[in-house]
């Protein structure tokens, strides 16, 4: 009984693999022409929503993500407030038009889970104990999705928190690593995530050298898992440099205009 079940699963896997092209070609390049350890092109911008206390926008490949932050302000409803620290209320949401097939705008099971893991990956970075009885609201809106939106969402939300002037121990930056066609790759896109063998999203605080989110989907050997984390952290460090640049550029531009 068990054996037959395994066989059918294997067959199914083979079928899907046959249907799609190879994820990595003979030259060792991926579907979008990237090398195995290359990130997608990234664009970050800070402070673009005047009505929110802090905001950020990020494009990573075909991902387009907007984050807005409010607070800290009095928590509503009252009972969610903690007497000894602030609470973060986080909403990860995918726009109906963010994927090929219209997604219902109501929060799905997946949205709720991602809201929770993103909240938990941001919490260690924020000085919550400074502002008891208040709440900090983080809204992450995925306008266009192409794999790795939880990581991109964390990176964007951390920028928005910093832009809101909320004191933080460090910025949080996230990047995924995984495996496709037997090779370890970094920053998976949608196809690589769905067809590939494994996906390991990692959120990281670079200066404190601390991981705040670690998940895995699929299967990897222990050695592969360890090198996948290493690759994800390298990706995080590259993104972190861009994050800092985005935060600072808003003010550097003003300074340069001054000198002219």
């Amino acid at each position, binding site marked *: 009984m068990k054996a037959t079940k395994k066989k059918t699963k294997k067959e199914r896997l083979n079928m899907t693999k046959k249907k799609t092209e190879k994820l990595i070609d003979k030259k060792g390049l991926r579907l979008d022409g990237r090398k195995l350890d290359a990130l997608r092109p990234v664009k970050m911008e800070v402070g673009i929503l005047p009505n929110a206390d*802090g905001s950020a926008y990020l494009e990573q490949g075909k991902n387009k993500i907007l984050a807005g932050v409010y607070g800290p302000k009095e928590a509503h409803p009252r009972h969610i407030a903690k007497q000894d620290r602030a609470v973060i209320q986080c909403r990860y949401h995918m726009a109906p038009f963010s994927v090929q097939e219209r997604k219902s705008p109501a929060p799905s099971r997946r949205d709720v889970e991602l809201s929770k893991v993103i909240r938990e990956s941001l919490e260690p970075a924020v000085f919550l104990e400074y502002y008891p009885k*208040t709440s900090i609201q983080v809204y992450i809106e995925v306008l266009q999705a192409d794999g790795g939106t939880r990581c991109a969402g964390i990176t964007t939300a951390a920028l928005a928190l910093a*832009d809101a002037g909320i004191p933080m121990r460090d910025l949080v930056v996230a990047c995924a690593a995984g495996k496709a066609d037997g090779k370890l790759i970094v920053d998976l896109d949608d196809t690589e995530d769905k067809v590939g063998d494994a996906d390991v999203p990692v959120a990281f605080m670079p200066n404190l050298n601390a991981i705040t989110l670690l998940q895995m989907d699929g299967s990897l050997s222990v050695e592969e898992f360890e090198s996948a984390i290493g690759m994800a952290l390298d990706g995080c460090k590259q993104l972190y440099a861009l994050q800092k640049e985005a935060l600072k550029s808003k003010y550097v531009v003003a300074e340069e205009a001054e000198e002219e």
Partner: protein
Amino acid sequence: MPVFYEKKQLVAPGDLLAEGDYVPGDSTYKENGKIYASRLGLVDYDGRRVQVVALKAFYIPAPGDTIIGKVVETTPGGWVIDIKAPHLARLRASDVVERSFKPETTDLPSIFDVGDLIIARVVAYDRTRDPLLTVREPGLGKITRGRLIEVTPTKIPRVIGRKGSMVSMIKRETGCQLTLGQNGLVLVSGKSPENERLAVMALHKIEEESHTSGLTDRVTEMIKKERKAVESN
């Protein structure tokens, strides 16, 4: 005891600022003998003290601060005031009316109603309770006229300038009265809308360029230029 940045350099949260025998100031924190930035801002090393002048922050009440707030609720015992801080502030009715007032007979909304703007002073705040305000001092109370401008609270010292040079310059050049709330709200009231417009322009310029030097002179110049442009029309 090394320091890792120059004065007035831009830093982001998590940047290592100094190591060793230093004292953490505003927008910084110390962990394992190392001082890190906790906000985006400009570093300042002042002797052993390391601090960051944040480019954006929210207001944290401190006793003695003059602030501008908005009444959001009247309660039997007083008012609830939004002072743009993480917590709502309270103003007790006994602070305003005679000590023998009766909550059931005194018409509190006739003194301050929801939506009114008031200038007040913070009496007490320690993060465990809501900040407490008073209006029992000259110059405090309901705002009846003028224009309200919002700037980031950390920039209020810049609006004041060294020994008040910036604020007195704006007052002199525009003929407007400025009331600075430590919570980032500034009340501008002048004799004419034109004067008020000039003062508001000056405030916006200060906010945008607060991290650059020689600002007072540039703002003076801008006001004079604007004034001339208006007069020649």
